[in-house]
């Protein structure tokens, strides 16, 4: 069992408020991702859970036991550091065996276990070498191996892929999922990368400015971001956020965007709660914008292509529509037909869009 509860955790560094009341629960065996921009408090949160930071207030409860005053060594937690923190003067084998040495384990058993973990992570050939002579991926695997070798109840991972190249990141994402399935241990994974969060997390907690703003499944996070800040963080490229104004003249309320007029009936939300002139933000994923062909019934507007960014299978188009800059994603075959400076017609289903309040930035539900 490893159930973790954070309750109003606050941490200051001098005058800087790193954590401003963090609350979340992680269930036994869950893969929980903390997603947030840099300096949002991800690392501090993990360090607080590990016991490396003293809390200013709030509680961390692990399997019903308050962790206050319980030293790092007794928390049964392992951690993979962003910098890996491998012991530079020890070989791979010694690094792996390190956490076992203090457990009064027989030398033979340690050797077997080290062998087992090394095989599982594919670093058997590096056992007699020192970390400095390993590649980035091997160092990464070693760091993970050292963390999981003593079968901790809870594994904390602090941006473990940030220092790796793109190809390795991709491989390691799958690797983490496999490890999680095989080991069944509870994992908390901090990352600034929305792709890692969405592809690996069972649930994702978004942390911004030292506060958790949303905890949801990846699908819900993508679909219904809690506010503008989350919307900017999730999705690649992130949601287009377009300012709009509510209008009520004659034939029912509508939302006026700089380049398009959308009647209420087409929208997902009712505009009834809003007075005429209320300013809202209309968010739509770049993937929901399509190139229009003739005779379309959906909402459509004219835009000028500013930049095309071919990415192999897809092409990202940077558009200028009225005063707004938008992004849309089209299949490569379609993207290849168009170039910068060209006028195109873009269609979308307004029902795919989301509305946010302008002042607070919060999603309208």
């Amino acid at each position, binding site marked *: 069992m490893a159930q973790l509860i954070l309750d109003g955790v606050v941490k200051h560094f001098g005058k800087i408020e790193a954590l401003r009341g963090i609350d979340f629960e992680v269930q036994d065996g869950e893969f929980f991702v903390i997603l947030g921009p840099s300096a949002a408090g991800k690392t501090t949160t993990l360090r607080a859970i590990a016991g490396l930071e003293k809390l200013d207030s709030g509680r961390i409860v692990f399997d019903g036991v308050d962790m206050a005053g319980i030293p790092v060594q007794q928390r049964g937690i*392992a*951690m993979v*550091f962003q910098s890996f923190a491998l*012991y*530079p*003067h020890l070989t791979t084998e010694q690094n792996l065996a390190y*956490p076992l*040495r203090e457990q009064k384990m027989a030398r033979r058993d340690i050797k077997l276990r080290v062998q087992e973990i090394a095989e599982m992570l594919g670093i058997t050939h590096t056992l007699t070498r*020192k970390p400095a002579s390993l590649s980035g991926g091997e160092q990464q695997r070693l760091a993970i191996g050292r963390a999981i070798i003593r079968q901790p109840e809870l594994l904390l991972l602090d941006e473990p892929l940030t220092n790796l190249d793109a190809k390795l990141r991709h491989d390691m994402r799958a690797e983490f999922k496999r490890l999680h399935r095989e080991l069944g241990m509870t994992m908390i994974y901090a990352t600034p990368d929305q792709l890692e969060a969405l592809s690996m997390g069972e649930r994702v907690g978004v942390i911004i400015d030292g506060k958790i703003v949303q905890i949801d499944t990846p699908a819900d996070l993508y679909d219904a971001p809690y506010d503008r800040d989350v919307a900017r963080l999730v999705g690649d490229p992130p949601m287009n956020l377009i300012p709009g104004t509510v209008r009520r003249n004659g034939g029912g309320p509508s939302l006026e965007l700089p380049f398009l007029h959308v009647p209420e009936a087409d929208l997902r939300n009712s505009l009834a709660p809003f007075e005429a002139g209320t300013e809202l933000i209309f968010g739509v994923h770049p993937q929901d914008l399509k190139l229009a062909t003739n005779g379309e019934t959906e909402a459509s507007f004219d835009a000028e292509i500013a930049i095309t960014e071919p990415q192999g299978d897809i092409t990202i188009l940077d558009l200028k529509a009225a005063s707004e800059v938008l992004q849309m994603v089209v299949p490569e075959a379609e993207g290849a037909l168009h170039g910068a400076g060209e006028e195109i017609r873009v269609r979308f289903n307004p029902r795919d869009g989301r509305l946010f309040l302008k002042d607070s930035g919060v999603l309208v539900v």
Partner: protein
Amino acid sequence: MSKRYQHQQGLIAQFISENRGPLLVTPALAVLVLMNIFPLLWSFGLSFFKYRANRLNEPEFVWFKNYIKILNDPNVWDRFQTTALVVSIDVLLQLIVGFLLALLFQSQFPGRRVLLMLVLTPMMLSFVAVGAFFRYYYEPTFGLLSQAVKAITGERYILLATPEGALAGVIFADVWMWSPFVMLLVLAGLVSVPKHLYEAAEIDRTSAWRRFWTITFPYIRGLLLLAILFRTIEAFKLFDLAWIITEGGPGTSTETIAIYVYRVAFQYFKTSESAALGYILLFAVIVLTNLYLFFVRKRAAEEDA
């Protein structure tokens, strides 16, 4: 005429600008050659002659006679033994004290900066001042040590009267003076250990003892070897402190090889013999240095493997 003068001017300026580096180094090199290298070579030549600086006799070339004489001199071997004893105890104590001081100053505590400066002061004093200070400290009638012992036992204590006491006195002074140097080097090593390694070790539930040997020590090993090397060479040449505190006494119990060289050169005036002994000493230090470097390199090679 004036054109030619200008041409010459131009040549000089060109010469200066093209050779700025060598020209800037020349004065320092000149002083070095005059004050160090020339005397060094001169005395090396002298060590093959029979020559006394206080006689008017012409120097006489005697091949290796001086060296043979010195290597067969039981006094020389006795002084070497004294020196070896002083060096081993002295350096060991400096390492221990320096190490403990470094561990103390590694942590932050109120007054650390002030205390650190006080601890570093001995190193910056001149040998003569430290020597004089300790001579008075050990002085039988009004010296602090004697007074303190008297307050307990009722009798005065003459530390420098026995060979062991005199050795202890000289060594204590040198340890007091040079432990801060070891501390500085060790402290540099301690500070260079990345903090996240300690955190990782904490998470890996390592005991303080293992943490020290597997994480901390590898970072200070190189600097520690350097400290041993420097301090051994210095202790090998120990002259000032011993000369001022005991003048090599009682008897010859604290007469280090450096003091013996001095006596041979300026009290017995066997100039060429002392030059030969000086060269034997230099040779010993060079051998010692290379031995250390050999071990350091071997270590480094093992590290890389």
